[in-house]
C-alpha cells in the first residue's frame, strides 16, 4: 500500500517536472512569451471593454464625424463621429471573443469525432471521414461565407460558421494521433482491465493526443480572427452598428481618401492579435513537441 502511494507521488512529481520544463521552453521563446501577455491583455479587454471605454461606442455626433486623432478621441472618430478607441475596446468581445468561442466549439466537436473515428473504426470511421473529406474540400473562408449567407446575420451564425469551418482539421489531426496511440501497451492494458470504451478514450487516449490540438488551437484562433473580421468587412458578420473590428473597416473604407485613420487603427489591432496568436502557436509547438524539445535541450 505504501509502495503504491510512493509510486503515485513519483508520477505526480514527474508530471510536475515535465510541465515546468515545458513552461521554461515556452518562456525561452521571448516573442511567444510577450505574445501570451498581449493575448491575455486583449482577453481582459474583451471582458471589461465597456467599463473602460472613454465614450459610448454607439453614440454618434456628426459634428465630429471623421475627426482625426485628438486628446478627446485618441484614435479619432469614425464616419458617424463615434469614438474609435471605445469601439475597438468594446469590439474586442465580438472579434476576439467570438473567434475564441467558435474555435473552442469547433475543436471540441472535431476532437470528439476524431477520437471516435480513430478508436472505433469501422462504419463510424468511414462515415465521419467521408463527411470530413467533403468539408475539407471547401476553402475555409468560402465555407464560412456560404454558411453565414444562408444562416442570416448575427453572432450565432458567425459562431456556427467559424466552428464548422475549423472543425475538419481537428477530426483529421486527432484521428491520425489516435491511430498511432491505440496500439500502445497502456491502451491495450486498459482494455484488458475491462475499462469502458469511453473511459479509455477520454482518460487514456485523449491526454496523449491533445498536444498537437493545443498547438493547432492557437494558430486557428488567429485564423478565426481573420475570418471573423473578413466576414465583418464584407458586411456578412455581426450586423451594424456592432463595433466588430472588421465591420469598422468595412464601413469606414469609403472614407479612405480623406480619413485613413478610420481604417488604419482597427486593422492594426487585428494584425497585432493574429500575430500574437501565431507567435504563441510557435512557442507552444516548441514546448509541447517532444522532438523539438529534445533538440532544444541539447543546446
Amino acid at each position, binding site marked *: 500500500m505504501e509502495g503504491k502511494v510512493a509510486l503515485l507521488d513519483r508520477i505526480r512529481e514527474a508530471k510536475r517536472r515535465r510541465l515546468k520544463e515545458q513552461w521554461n521552453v515556452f518562456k525561452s521563446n521571448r516573442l511567444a512569451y510577450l505574445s501570451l501577455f498581449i493575448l491575455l491583455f486583449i482577453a481582459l479587454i474583451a471582458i471589461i471593454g465597456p467599463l473602460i471605454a472613454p465614450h459610448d461606442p454607439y453614440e454618434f455626433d456628426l459634428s465630429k464625424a471623421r475627426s482625426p486623432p485628438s486628446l478627446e478621441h485618441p484614435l479619432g472618430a469614425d464616419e458617424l463621429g463615434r469614438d474609435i478607441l471605445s469601439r475597438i475596446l468594446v469590439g474586442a468581445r465580438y472579434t476576439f471573443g467570438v473567434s475564441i468561442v467558435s474555435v473552442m466549439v469547433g475543436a471540441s466537436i472535431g476532437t470528439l469525432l476524431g477520437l471516435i473515428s480513430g478508436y472505433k473504426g469501422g462504419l463510424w470511421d468511414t462515415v465521419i471521414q467521408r463527411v470530413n473529406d467533403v468539408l475539407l474540400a471547401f476553402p475555409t473562408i*468560402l465555407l464560412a*461565407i*456560404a454558411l453565414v449567407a*444562408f*444562416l442570416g446575420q448575427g453572432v450565432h451564425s458567425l459562431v456556427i460558421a467559424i466552428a464548422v469551418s475549423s472543425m475538419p482539421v481537428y477530426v483529421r489531426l486527432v484521428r491520425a494521433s489516435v491511430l498511432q496511440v491505440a496500439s500502445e501497451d497502456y491502451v491495450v492494458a486498459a482494455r484488458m482491465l475491462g475499462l469502458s470504451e469511453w473511459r479509455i478514450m477520454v482518460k487514456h487516449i485523449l491526454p496523449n493526443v491533445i498536444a498537437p490540438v493545443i498547438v493547432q488551437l492557437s494558430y486557428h484562433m488567429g485564423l478565426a480572427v481573420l475570418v471573423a473580421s473578413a466576414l465583418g468587412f*464584407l458586411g456578412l458578420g455581426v450586423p451594424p452598428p456592432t463595433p466588430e473590428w472588421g465591420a469598422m473597416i468595412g464601413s469606414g473604407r469609403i472614407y479612405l481618401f480623406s480619413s485613413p485613420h478610420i481604417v*488604419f487603427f482597427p486593422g492594426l489591432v487585428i494584425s497585432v492579435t493574429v500575430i500574437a496568436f501565431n507567435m504563441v502557436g510557435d512557442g507552444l509547438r516548441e514546448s509541447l513537441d517532444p522532438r523539438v524539445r529534445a533538440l532544444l535541450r541539447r543546446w
Partner: protein
Amino acid sequence: MVSSLSTYLFYRFLQAIVTFFGAMILFFFIVRILPGDPARILAGPEASEEDVAKIREALGLNKPIYEQFFIYLTSILRGDLGTSIKYGTPVVNEILARLPYTIALALVAEAIAVIIAIPLGVLAALKPRSMLSYIASLLSILGTSLPVFWVGLMLIFIFAVELRLLPSSGADSPKHIILPALTLAFFLTGNLARMTKAAVLEALSSNHVVTAIAKGLPFSKILVRHVLRVSLIPILTIISLQLGALLGGAIITETVFAWPGIGSLLVDSLFYRDYVLAQGIIMFIVGVFILLNLLTDIAYALVDPRIRDVLWRVR
C-alpha cells in the same frame, strides 16, 4: 509499376468525383436543414409574405424535398447551374464572363510572388543568419497574420491616394491589375519563400549533396544540379496549390479593388440575395479546388518515383 500507378490514378480520380458530389449533397442539405427559411433571408427583413412565397416558388423551395433533390442533382449532371435571379441569364454564362479576370489576376499575382520568393528563399537557406533570411521570416509571419482587406486598403492609400501612381479600383486599364496583384502577391510571397527555404535546406542536408560536396564539385554546379532540382518538386506543389486557391477567386481582394472576377461576383450575388447565382459560384469554386488537388496529386505521382511508390502503398 505502370499498372499500380494507373490504378492509383483511377482511385484518386474516383475519390475526387465522390468528394465533389458529396460536397454538393452536403451543401443542399445544409441550406435546407439549418434553422431559418432561405426564401425569407433572401427576401430581406422588410419583404411581405407574398414576396417570400414568390421567391420560394421561383427557387422550387415549395416542392417536396426529394423532388428538389432530384432536380438539383440532375441539373448539376447536365452542367446547368440554373438562372441568375438578378441578371436573368444562365449562371454558367455569368461565371464564364468573369473567369478571365480571375485567371489574369491569379497569374500576375503568382508571377510576382515567384519572382520575389524563390530567390529570397534560396538565399535565405544558403545564408540562414543573414538579413535576407530575416526578411523572409518576417514576410512569412506577416503573410499569415495580416488581414487581406486591410493590406489592400493600405496599398490603395499609399499608391493611389498619397503617391497618385496607380488607380484604386476597377479594371479599365492594364494598370488596374497592379494593386490587387501586389496585395495577393504579398500573401503568396511569405508562404512560398518559407517553403522554398525549407525545401532547399532539406536538399542541402541530403546524402547526395553531401557526396557532391565531398567529391569537390564546384558550388554553383552543386546548387543547380543537385539542390535546386530536388527542391523544385515541393516548390512547384506550393505554386500549384496557391494558383488553385486563387482560381477559385480571391473573394476579399477582388471585393476591395472592385475587380470583376468570380470572387467579387460571389459577394455581389450575396448582396443582391441572388441565391441561385451564389450557389452556382460556390459549386464552381469547390469544383476547381477539388480538381486542382487532383491534378497536383497526379503531377506528384508522375514526377517523383519516390512519392509514386509511397502514394501507391498508402492507397
